[in-house]
């Protein structure tokens, strides 16, 4: 039986709806604009003030990108480190988080170490030295291992594990499960929402790998899509000091590809990771316990 709704309820709903639609529009519009430009011809783009509905839809920009080996290869690199990186990150984060929920000798000390990195970072150069000393330079692992565990994610995941009733573990122990079995058969299945959430965070951050790729990978063939994208959509912005005059002049020689190509590159570099969201959506909405413990 539906609840009766008063007029004020409806007005409030209407206002909410309007504001949310406005918010959605503000976020979607730039994206739509990029899509529109990427499918338009360059002539039309230059001669239109704000191009929203291309008169002729052309695929030239996309064709150009698919013909260029760099971009496709870099997408491959990014997909690879995103998948491998997310799996490695989730594995390491969840196992460590689980370990820190057990009665572990020195648990507080380990937690302190995690929290310490929360506040203090080593800085770029010491990190580089470690990556170098461990022989990861020019290897994809340099993009995966150094940031494999996000300390914040770890803390939150640990809290999540702690919120799972201890009675479940006790029941499992009575049935003869060891720690590993508890972890794989009880904790992980019940933590799907958390795993999905953190998996998504890790995936997005791996997808956006840019600076570390430039820092640790010397071979341009290994660069991620964001680096290549950056080269296609360079900030071409002159500054009026004499120090940069030669740069302005030198840069002028380089021909920018039509903006349409830049926009197409943005689309191609963004859409794949956007597609991941809907697949994880269902895990966010699901309940966690689903009647596992009868209070």
């Amino acid at each position, binding site marked *: 039986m539906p609840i009766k709704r008063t007029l004020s309820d409806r007005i409030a709903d209407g206002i909410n709806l309007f504001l949310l639609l406005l918010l959605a529009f503000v976020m979607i519009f730039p994206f739509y604009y990029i899509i529109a430009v990427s499918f338009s011809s360059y002539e039309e783009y230059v001669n239109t003030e704000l191009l929203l509905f291309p008169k002729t839809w052309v695929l030239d920009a996309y064709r150009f990108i698919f013909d260029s080996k760099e971009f496709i290869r870099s997408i491959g690199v990014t997909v690879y480190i995103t998948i491998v990186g997310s799996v490695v990150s989730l594995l390491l984060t969840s196992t460590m988080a689980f370990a820190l929920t057990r009665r572990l000798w020195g648990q507080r000390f380990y937690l302190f170490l995690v929290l310490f990195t929360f506040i203090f970072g080593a800085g770029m150069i010491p990190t580089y030295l470690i990556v170098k000393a461990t022989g990861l330079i020019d290897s994809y692992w340099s993009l995966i291992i150094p940031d494999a565990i996000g300390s914040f994610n770890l803390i939150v995941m640990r809290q999540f594990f702690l919120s799972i009733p201890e009675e479940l573990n006790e029941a499992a122990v009575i049935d003869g499960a060891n720690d590993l079995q508890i972890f794989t058969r009880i904790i992980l299945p019940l933590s799907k929402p958390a795993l999905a959430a953190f998996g998504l965070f890790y995936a997005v951050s791996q997808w956006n790998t840019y600076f570390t790729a430039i820092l640790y990978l010397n071979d341009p063939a290994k660069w991620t899509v964001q680096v290549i994208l950056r080269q296609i959509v360079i*900030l071409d912005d002159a500054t009026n000091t004499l*120090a940069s005059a030669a740069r302005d002049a030198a840069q002028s020689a*380089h021909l920018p590809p039509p903006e349409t190509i830049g926009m197409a590159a943005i689309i191609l570099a963004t859409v794949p990771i956007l597609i991941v969201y809907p697949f994880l959506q269902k895990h966010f909405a699901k309940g*966690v316990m689903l009647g596992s413990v009868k209070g």
Partner: protein
Amino acid sequence: MKTKMKAPSTKKLVTLIAAVCLVTGIAGCGGSNDNNKESNTANTTPTTDSGNGNAPATTDNQPANATNNKTDNQAAADPVTKKLDISAIQGTWASPLPDPNGNGAKMIDEKFNIDLKSQFVPYDEYANKLPVVMAAGDLPDMIGMEGVDANFVKWARQGAFLPLNDYIDKYEALKSIPKNVWDAVTVDGKIYGIPNYFPAKYGKKPIIRKDWLDNLGLSMPTNYDEFEKVAIAFTKDDPDKNGKKDTLGLGLAKGIVYGSWMGAEWDSGWYNKNDKGQLIPGNISDGFKKQVTVLHDLYQAGAVSKDWAVTKSSDARKDFFAGKTGIFYEQPYDISETRFKQLKEANPAAELAVIPPFVQDDGQQGFSGLPGYYELHSLNAKLKDDPDKINRILEMINYFMTFIPVDQRNDQNADFDWQNGGVGKGYNMENGVAINIDGAASEMPTMYLGLRYWAPTDEDTQPAMVLQDPFTKGFVQSAVDLLKSTKTYLDPVNRIHSDLLFANGSELDQTIADHQTRMIVGQEPISDWDKMVKEYLSKGGQAIIDQVNQQLDESGIVGEWK
């Protein structure tokens, strides 16, 4: 409205996710934080030639007369016996980058009997990467830098680079580098880098739509009053005769790029002197005040875009080449023909000309020049006990810097042909001009070191010669002819290294630019100019001026007209 009680744990989860979202600022979309509209990717053209960029075609057109027999010309050097490993790192604007194992690299290896490991980093991030590589002790044998900055001077003083004074005279091309350029890479009397040629004369120059002048019956402006009149007429009198009010007088972008300087006196270089006789930076000089006043007038009259203060320079340039702006800045050297072609296609009547510099108050007449170099290569100090390697590297640099006259840059010249990967592989001959094949960067040895020919004089570069498009060629030739008879001011500050200027200069310049931007749009009266200068001087500007002038006096360097 909730109609069903949800499990509390879900609530907890939602809160948790919300919290994490808040903290990590979940990235909604990867990489779209850089989606500025103007993209600029380098076309792989060596900077020794003009960017002959026709929008990157991907077809590999093989010429019929592809000669595949490689002329094996002797490097002008002693027979090299021992194979040496040589590593290099440098920044680049080019894209895509040459493949480290490409054919061009192999040709270099063979010719100089080395194993070259050349690494390119996009300039955007080079400033971050180089210090890290430096700190990690991973410095290669050759280090490229974009210019002389605080880091270069610091590292040179810390002994990271090899002093080159004793080697220069052995190499013809290096010997031809003029002293004012050597000064720039000299720290405490030692030369720490080999500058890469870039003509001082052919920087950005004010260019005007001559056809618009003719349409309106106006003549080329010779002073600022006429300049203002022309720019306003370009806005109000329909100079393109299309019946619409859709034009602007002057293209201006944020940070006052490029402004309206019509000679060294009004530019941002160190030309003017204060009442103590000290040289001062342009942006606080009375000459610059004149420029700001002009821009203010034009803004009031609507002759510059209303939102120029937030416009990217590339967008302002786009407007000019779309035929919407009457005056903008472009250089006659190293340009992409494509933009000019687009302008001419859309506006068949378009004619461009450089506005001759105005006569200054001191009677001089001429534009500020560039430093005369762009980018440099240093050698790693660790090489000091390995003269073989030093000489091999310098020989290579010398070879790639040895000037080949423009009219000999064709498949008949063995060196040129080799440097560009061979005709049909790295370039094609069209109408007697070598045109790079798109996407063939990895075939061209010259792409692997980022070196440019050192021209004896700026005129020797003959920038119009290498162009194909008649419209672009015509403009460049007229600009070169005009500049041949005008003087260029060489800013002495390019030749010294003031720590204070490196440390605080750009921040102070930013403050000044902010004030001047407000003055131009009328949010701050121009009568506050002196207040602004005082602020500059008190915030460390005076110390910079003192230091710069002291260094100039000590070294006997003065600004000169060339």
